[in-house]
């Protein structure tokens, strides 16, 4: 009998506790408050890159070769590139794991970019404008413990719009990366990425190591994306010293007789890559708007021309047999960009996994372009004394009902 009473009392107690929990949820929900749904702000960035024209190095050819004929037809090589990219959160799921203390989240982002590149060959009468554009999708899963998973799918089209001749290729860049936060100061990433920034369609292993906190000085090696030493000065200014590859694979119309011994080919592939090394300065004008400028040296610059169409007719040779290839000597480059972030977000202060989520998203900038908005959304710690507070700032510390 006594045992039965005990069971009933436990049941009633549990029921009452459950009721309180329901009421607690009900009390908050009954207010119908507007809450932020995502952690990511919608981010739009504009990026402009240029590199001065360089003459092709003279080849020691005893007889006239294809390369020297094309050299003469091209004259020199320089690059002007403009890119507009964006990412926007479309769905964010946040939830507690079973033990109700580990808070996980999954982010679904829509990405896109529109890149216009003008390879400048001074002997070609009409400058070619090559476009690369597409919409992509990425999923970032934050386990809430130590791991962050990153899946990125970036389909895009490349086309040469110099004339109305139809041309172009559909391509797909993608990445699958696992990031492990051993501690706030040490992170490693592993994965695979299909990228065109090395001038070809390579499947490359992704290996990343970072020493130092993301909201402090850190040294990051993210192969094949970049190697950088990041030095935040304050929440408005951040420096970094970096080296990274840049390049792509584009459709190029054969209307200048560059592929003169195959005039029937309407378009071919133009590929280029270079290794950039320099200094980048990120500056924030306010919470939503920032910019960056970087300059330095472009080395190992390489361009190639080849035709997929011709290669297909030769099944026994690799698809990328170039009919022209040239490497150029180092030169300077200038890159600058503007970044606009907007939207209401959930708080993520000191949440190192969320910082890692932002970093992995920014290192892998939309559109396989390898120049992105940077980590300005990660707050840099500062003390109260450094913060230039005034009385208006502190009004939120006073309870509304105290006023």
């Amino acid at each position, binding site marked *: 009998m006594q045992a039965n009473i005990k069971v009933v009392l436990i049941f009633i107690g549990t029921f009452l506790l459950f009721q309180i929990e329901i009421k607690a949820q009900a009390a908050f929900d009954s207010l119908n408050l507007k809450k932020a749904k995502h952690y990511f702000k919608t981010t739009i960035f504009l990026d*402009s890159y240029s590199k001065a024209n360089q003459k092709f190095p003279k080849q020691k050819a005893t007889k006239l070769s294809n390369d020297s004929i094309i050299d003469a037809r091209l004259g020199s090589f320089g690059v002007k590139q403009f890119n507009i990219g964006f990412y926007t959160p479309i769905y964010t799921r946040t939830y507690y794991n079973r033990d109700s203390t580990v808070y996980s989240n999954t982010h679904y982002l829509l990405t896109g970019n529109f890149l216009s590149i003008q390879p400048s060959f001074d002997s070609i009468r009409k400058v070619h404008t090559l476009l690369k554009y597409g919409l992509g999708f990425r999923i970032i899963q934050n386990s809430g413990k130590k791991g962050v998973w990153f899946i990125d799918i970036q389909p895009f089209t490349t086309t040469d719009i110099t004339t109305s001749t139809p041309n172009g290729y559909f391509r797909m860049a993608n990445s699958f990366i696992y990031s492990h936060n051993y501690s706030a100061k040490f992170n490693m990433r592993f994965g695979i990425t299909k990228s065109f920034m090395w001038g070809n369609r390579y499947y490359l292993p992704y290996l990343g190591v970072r020493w130092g906190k993301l909201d402090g000085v850190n040294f990051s090696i993210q192969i094949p994306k970049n190697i950088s030493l990041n030095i935040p000065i304050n929440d408005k200014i951040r420096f970094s010293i970096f080296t990274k590859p840049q390049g792509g694979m584009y459709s190029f119309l054969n209307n200048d007789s560059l592929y003169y011994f195959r005039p029937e080919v309407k378009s071919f592939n133009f590929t280029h890559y270079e290794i950039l090394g320099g200094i980048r300065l990120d500056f924030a004008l306010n919470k939503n708007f920032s910019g960056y400028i970087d300059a330095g040296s472009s080395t190992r610059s390489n361009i190639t021309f080849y035709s997929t169409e011709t290669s297909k007719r030769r099944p026994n040779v690799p698809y990328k047999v170039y009919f022209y290839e040239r490497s150029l000597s180092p030169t300077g480059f200038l890159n600058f960009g503007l970044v606009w972030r907007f939207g209401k977000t959930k*708080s993520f*202060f*000191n949440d190192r996994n969320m910082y890692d989520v932002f970093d992995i998203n920014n290192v892998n900038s939309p559109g396989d372009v390898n120049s992105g908005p940077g980590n300005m959304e990660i707050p840099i710690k500062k003390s109260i004394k450094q913060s230039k507070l005034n009385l208006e*700032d502190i009004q939120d510390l006073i309870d509304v009902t105290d006023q």
Partner: protein
Amino acid sequence: MKAIKNILIILTVLLCITPSKAKAQRDKIDELRSTFIAKHLDFSSAESEKFWPIYNELHDKRKAIKKNLRQSLKNLPPAATDKEAEELINLENKSAAADAELTKTYNDKLKLVIGAKKLAKLKVVEEEFKLEVLKAAKEK
């Protein structure tokens, strides 16, 4: 030249669309609070990775309650009707109830993560933060 002109136009437009001053001020305080707490509570790596997402969620909910109430207070017309006044009082009661329940629910969650001692210290540190900020603002 045309490209530079276009960029300047875009820059001007974007600069005009800046976040509200109040929002920026609240963000500033939130950032400072989190730094202050991290500095004064010696969380282990494991505690830190669990604590901050929960604490941030609690903070977001509290902020939403305060903002909603503040907005309603601001919007109350000087010649408010009985019904309007009644609605505001109800909202204040509901907000207080929601806030109290949040405190209880999240205290339970945070206690599992950092333990009772550190949770109590957190409350002390939060109060110290307010005093420090008021002191800093007074010195300006």
